[in-house]
């Protein structure tokens, strides 16, 4: 029988600790862990691992969309009009200063250090209140023109979009879009398809709207160029209450219903591809990040409001260390 030495001309080295920078294709036996290891081409897609549990389980929550798996900010949620804000360092969620106005289904923009919260539902009515986060506390700024909940959202603390949602009067499912310039909200061109409970991604000049309820689930995806929305290819799995993040040409969406799903899809600017699922199906979670490094936290998997989070990591091509035994 041909053995490794017969094929490669040398034996597999035995080491007590893994090499710090193995070359592509290198394999070794780690005598400490008792495992054969090697460096191989990347798997082409990312995976979800478990992150730290949030302190307060919640659904219909929001997240700073431009965070990372080591710098997340989660705010608001249900049940009740949650004002709690939690900050994530890659290991632990820490409670920080609350929103001034508790709410759920709010839109979000920005990062852990500079975020924006807008709209949502604050009993007994939909909300137009906007708050700005400076890394320490929330400050109320100018309201949206029309109160709305279940909004899609994207952008930064000073340049954000509020996309669709259930707006006044009567929480009507709308195609309306508002743009935040750091000071005030301005109505801009509508989506082609009115919808609610959708995530957004990208920026105010390169945005993306992904799925939602029209009512009834849709996989419709629309791309925004700073002026108008254009329909592009649908997601493979229509859904609402999904989470999403990334940029217009490299985005992810995950979770949602109906039915409740753990499916994750990747958008390359043209079409959607299914990638590795979440471990736990959920809807109305908060999420932020990029196609290579992101985070989802909280949400709802009936009958439980969730305190669990998952971290998305897509390694750069060709840098995966694999365990073979």
């Amino acid at each position, binding site marked *: 029988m041909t053995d490794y030495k017969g094929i490669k001309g040398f034996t597999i080295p035995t080491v007590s600790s893994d090499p710090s920078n193995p070359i592509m294709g290198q394999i070794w036996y780690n005598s400490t862990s008792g495992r054969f290891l090697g460096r191989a081409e990347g798997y082409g897609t990312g995976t979800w*691992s*478990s992150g*730290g*549990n949030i302190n307060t389980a919640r659904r219909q929550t929001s997240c700073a969309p431009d965070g990372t798996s080591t710098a997340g900010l989660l705010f608001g949620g249900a049940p009740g009009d949650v004002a709690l804000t939690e900050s994530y360092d890659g290991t632990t969620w820490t409670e920080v200063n609350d929103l001034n106005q508790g709410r759920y289904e709010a839109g979000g923009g920005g990062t852990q250090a500079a975020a924006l919260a807008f709209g949502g539902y604050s009993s007994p009515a939909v909300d137009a209140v906007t708050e700005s986060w400076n890394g320490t506390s929330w400050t109320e700024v100018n309201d949206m023109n029309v109160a709305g909940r279940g909004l899609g959202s994207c952008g930064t603390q000073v340049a954000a979009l509020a996309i669709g949602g259930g707006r006044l009067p009567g929480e009507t499912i709308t195609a309306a879009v508002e743009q935040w310039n750091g000071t005030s909200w301005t109505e801009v061109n509508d989506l082609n398809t009115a919808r609610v409970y959708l995530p957004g991604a990208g920026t105010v000049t390169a945005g993306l709207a992904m799925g939602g309820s029209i009512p009834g689930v849709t996989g419709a995806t629309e791309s925004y160029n700073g002026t108008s929305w254009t329909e592009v290819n649908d997601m493979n799995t229509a859904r609402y209450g999904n989470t999403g993040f990334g940029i217009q040409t490299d985005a992810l969406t995950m979770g949602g219903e109906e*039915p409740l799903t753990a499916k994750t899809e990747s958008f390359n600017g043209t079409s959607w591809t299914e990638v590795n699922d979440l*471990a736990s199906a959920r809807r109305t979670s908060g999420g932020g990040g990029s196609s290579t490094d992101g985070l989802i936290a909280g949400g709802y998997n*009936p*009958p439980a409001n969730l305190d669990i989070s998952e971290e998305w990591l897509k390694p750069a091509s060709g840098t995966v260390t694999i365990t073979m035994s």
Partner: protein
Amino acid sequence: MANKYCTATNWGKDFFTHEDRRHFYLSGHPGQVWVVGDNHFGDSWIGKVSGVSKTQAEAQAIVDGEIEAGQTAYDALSAEEQAERSRPVKYNLP
């Protein structure tokens, strides 16, 4: 590939890792039920998380019980509250 079933409490960070997810199928369900790919990596993970092994029928019964409790709770909600969420639906574990 067949799956194994267990219950285990998700403690958070590193309960399952990216490497785990590359090595075996894993999905979490109501009642802290986990469906685990049947290979030696999956077996090692069940040990790591102190999983309590279940048969598929036992695991399904736990999930069904949780969903039935959720359905009961949903049915007790007001129409307004019900409009904000969907009624839990039973499904079969993989």
